[in-house]
């Protein structure tokens, strides 16, 4: 079988349209029985298999033959090295798609996988069907890279232009802003970059440990605040490295730092979500791992800003991302510089940008949601330019997954974690958080249901300004659902289900919208809106869909509340979607979810930006970031926007 395929070895090249038989798979598991079974299954699928019973052996093998493998499947629990660690290493160094597997189908672990940038998560016992689609991950990744570059460029360009003025309003780190502006100015560079990117895609930069160290050294030398890609690039003096590469990597790094610093403080306290701490906190735990996600999130913020501007469309994603960012922030960033600045910056960035993370959304739309979470996450990362290997994986996934904005949102969020793994965090964070936060609520949520949701409803939400992505994108939710359902991120579960997420959100929105108005502008979205949400999701859609809301938000409390609420709903819903998905999906009543979920905030962000109220939102968000987080408890984000909005 293998030999016949042309794609065979080149599957990794992302030549994409052929099924890469002969795909070179590396499997890592300390359980010999499992290794034997997997090997046999993979061989019967036509893949070439190399098995390792130890992670360190696997890593050195991978290092020896950098392009000798196309995909890695690894167990989570191994005696010599944690599977997630391995995942991170691979993502960082080789940027290969990694699939995690375990007998453990605990949501947390699954989310952790996502946030760490796993392309998929399979629950043991592994079925051969799950392995048949392995090649898709590889293709997706490659495609993603390409698309990412192209799409993100266009998105960024567009966003950037609009954002420029906005940027001034936001207080995100000067670096980011300047960087963004710089980017704008570099339009021509952009286009060049685009081309380069495209070609770069092929020669994707893999941020090896050494390279990263060089990067970090350069950043430190310049001072984090002054570390602009151009200067970093010059400082590093690495041939073949472009400013783009550095830029996206910088974003991720920033996110990572934020996460780290956030963690130091207390987990997400840094994140503007602040309030959400609870949820984030949990998220952090997930995210803790991925720097990249943070980095990605870093990227997102910028994008979000841009997105915010545009918001109406894709806001959803950004919001999600923001959520992610936060979650990431607290978690331990790989970069671990723990630079507070970053965190604060990133937070802000995330906050507003929320949307940007969505940048991916566009890309996402292409992708189906299924692994939305991943996709979402990845996308978030991708925007960065997938510098981070992990991101790529994530991005690829996310992009694929998230078709709709929602998807993007989630993706963004999710993606972020994954990007460096972080994206997964983001997404997972949501989910994870949600799960944690809600606890009971989530349990109810059955992920599979989530998927159902999104599919149908999303339209409303998306249409409106949420840019959720067209409903079907609810990838995040799907993912969540997917995870739970089958423990395998596999797209099929969520496949196409991105919609479900959306649907759910729609439902939520619809419900919420109604509730929102009654809820009170207070937005405490966090708590009340969410709680009300339980069944009110319906209102949600109304929020999302209507740009008016956004406007309202800023203007009237009720409006904003609704929006906020809507947002919350989305948040809640998002939550489900993002992380909560399960909850959302299952029952609208599960909205109770716990507003804490981040996702809501993300929605808010998303929602808000949509309307002209973006600025208001942004400022609100910014303010919130500062710690207002009234609604923090629950929404963290929401608290921001909402609180301010009613004002």
């Amino acid at each position, binding site marked *: 079988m293998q030999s016949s395929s042309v794609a065979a070895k080149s599957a990794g090249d992302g030549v994409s349209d052929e099924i890469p038989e002969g795909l070179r798979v590396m499997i890592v598991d*300390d*359980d*010999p*029985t*499992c290794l*034997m*079974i997997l090997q*046999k*299954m993979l061989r*019967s699928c036509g893949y070439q298999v190399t098995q390792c019973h130890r992670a360190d052996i696997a890593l050195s093998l991978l290092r020896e033959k950098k392009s000798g493998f196309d995909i890695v499947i690894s*167990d989570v*629990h191994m005696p010599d090295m944690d599977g997630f660690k391995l995942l991170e290493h691979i993502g960082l160094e080789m940027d290969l798609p990694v699939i995690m597997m*375990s*007998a*453990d189908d605990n949501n947390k672990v699954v989310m952790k996988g996502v946030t760490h940038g796993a392309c998929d998560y399979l629950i*043991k*016992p*592994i*079925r*051969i069907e799950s392995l048949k689609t392995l090649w898709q991950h590889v293709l997706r990744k490659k495609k993603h890279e390409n698309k990412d570059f192209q799409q993100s460029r266009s998105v960024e360009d567009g966003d950037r232009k609009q954002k420029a003025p906005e940027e001034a309003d936001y207080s995100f780190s000067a670096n980011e802003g300047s960087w963004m502006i710089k980017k704008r100015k570099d339009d021509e560079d952009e286009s060049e970059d685009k081309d380069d990117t495209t070609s770069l895609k092929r020669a994707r930069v893999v941020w090896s440990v050494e390279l990263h160290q060089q990067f970090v050294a350069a950043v430190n030398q310049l001072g984090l605040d002054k570390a602009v890609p151009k200067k970093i690039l010059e400082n590093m003096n690495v041939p073949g490295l472009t400013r783009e590469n550095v830029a996206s990597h910088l974003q991720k790094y920033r996110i990572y730092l934020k996460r780290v610093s956030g963690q130091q403080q207390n987990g997400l306290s840094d994140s503007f979500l602040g309030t959400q701490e609870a949820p984030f906190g949990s998220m952090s735990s997930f995210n803790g791992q991925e720097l990249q996600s943070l980095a990605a999130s870093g990227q997102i913020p910028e994008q979000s800003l841009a997105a915010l501007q545009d918001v109406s469309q894709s806001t959803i994603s950004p919001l999600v991302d923001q959520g992610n960012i936060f979650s990431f922030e607290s978690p331990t960033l790989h970069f671990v510089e723990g630079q507070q600045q970053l965190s604060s910056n990133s937070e802000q960035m995330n906050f507003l940008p929320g949307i940007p993370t969505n940048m991916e959304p566009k890309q996402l739309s292409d992708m189906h949601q299924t692994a939305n979470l991943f996709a979402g996450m990845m996308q978030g990362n991708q925007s960065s330019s997938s510098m981070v290997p992990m991101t790529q994986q994530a991005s690829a996934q996310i992009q694929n997954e998230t078709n709709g904005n929602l998807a993007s949102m989630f993706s963004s969020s999710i993606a972020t974690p994954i990007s460096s793994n972080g994206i997964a965090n983001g997404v997972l964070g949501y989910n994870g958080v949600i799960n944690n936060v809600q606890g009971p609520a989530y349990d109810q949520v059955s992920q599979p249901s989530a998927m159902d949701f999104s599919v149908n409803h999303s339209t409303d939400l998306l249409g409106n300004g949420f840019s959720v992505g067209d409903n079907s994108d609810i990838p995040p939710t799907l993912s969540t659902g997917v995870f739970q359902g089958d423990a395998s991120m596999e797209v099929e579960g969520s496949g196409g289900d991105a919609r479900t997420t959306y649907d759910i959100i729609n439902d939520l929105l619809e419900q919420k919208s109604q509730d929102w108005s009654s809820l009170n502008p207070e937005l405490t979205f966090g708590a009340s809106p969410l709680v009300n949400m339980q069944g009110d999701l319906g209102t949600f859609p109304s929020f999302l869909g209507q740009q008016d809301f956004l406007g309202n938000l800023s203007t009237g409390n009720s409006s904003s509340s609704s929006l906020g609420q809507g947002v919350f709903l989305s948040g809640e819903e998002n939550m489900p979607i993002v992380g909560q998905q399960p909850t959302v999906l299952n029952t609208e009543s599960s909205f109770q979810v716990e507003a804490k979920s981040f996702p809501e905030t993300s929605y808010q962000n998303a929602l808000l930006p949509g309307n002209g109220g973006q600025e208001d939102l942004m400022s609100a968000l910014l303010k919130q970031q500062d710690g207002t987080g009234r609604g923090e408890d629950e929404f963290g984000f929401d608290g921001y926007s909402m609180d301010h909005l009613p004002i």
Partner: protein
Amino acid sequence: MHRRLASMRKSLLDQGFLDEQFIQLEELQDDSNPNFVEEIAASYYRDSARQMLNIDQALDKYPLDFAKLDNLMHQFRGSSSSIGAKKVKNESTQFQEHCRTGNAEGCRRTYRQLKKEYATLKKKLEAYFQLARQAGPLETASRPK
């Protein structure tokens, strides 16, 4: 023989000793690996014996280290589920539950039950594979290519 084998397999499935995973393994078996499933089972019994020794030792300690037990059992459960050992897997899941709630008595009780199921399945599988080996050539011959 062939029929006997099929009916034995069916009864193992019906009684819940084995699940779908086992069937998947059988489907993987082919001419290049005619005794694939048996090899897998042998590997499983080797590993799981070692794992169970570890669990035995851990259960002898006072106080019980539930986290460790949970971890050990997790590995065991993974292996068991890989070959489709349904009852054994269920017992190990139960065991892990007890670990999470810190129920020492529950752990021991469940573990005793698990060992029983484990031994029972082993015997049944031995009989099954013996029959399979005998029926082998027949099966191969009758299997559509």
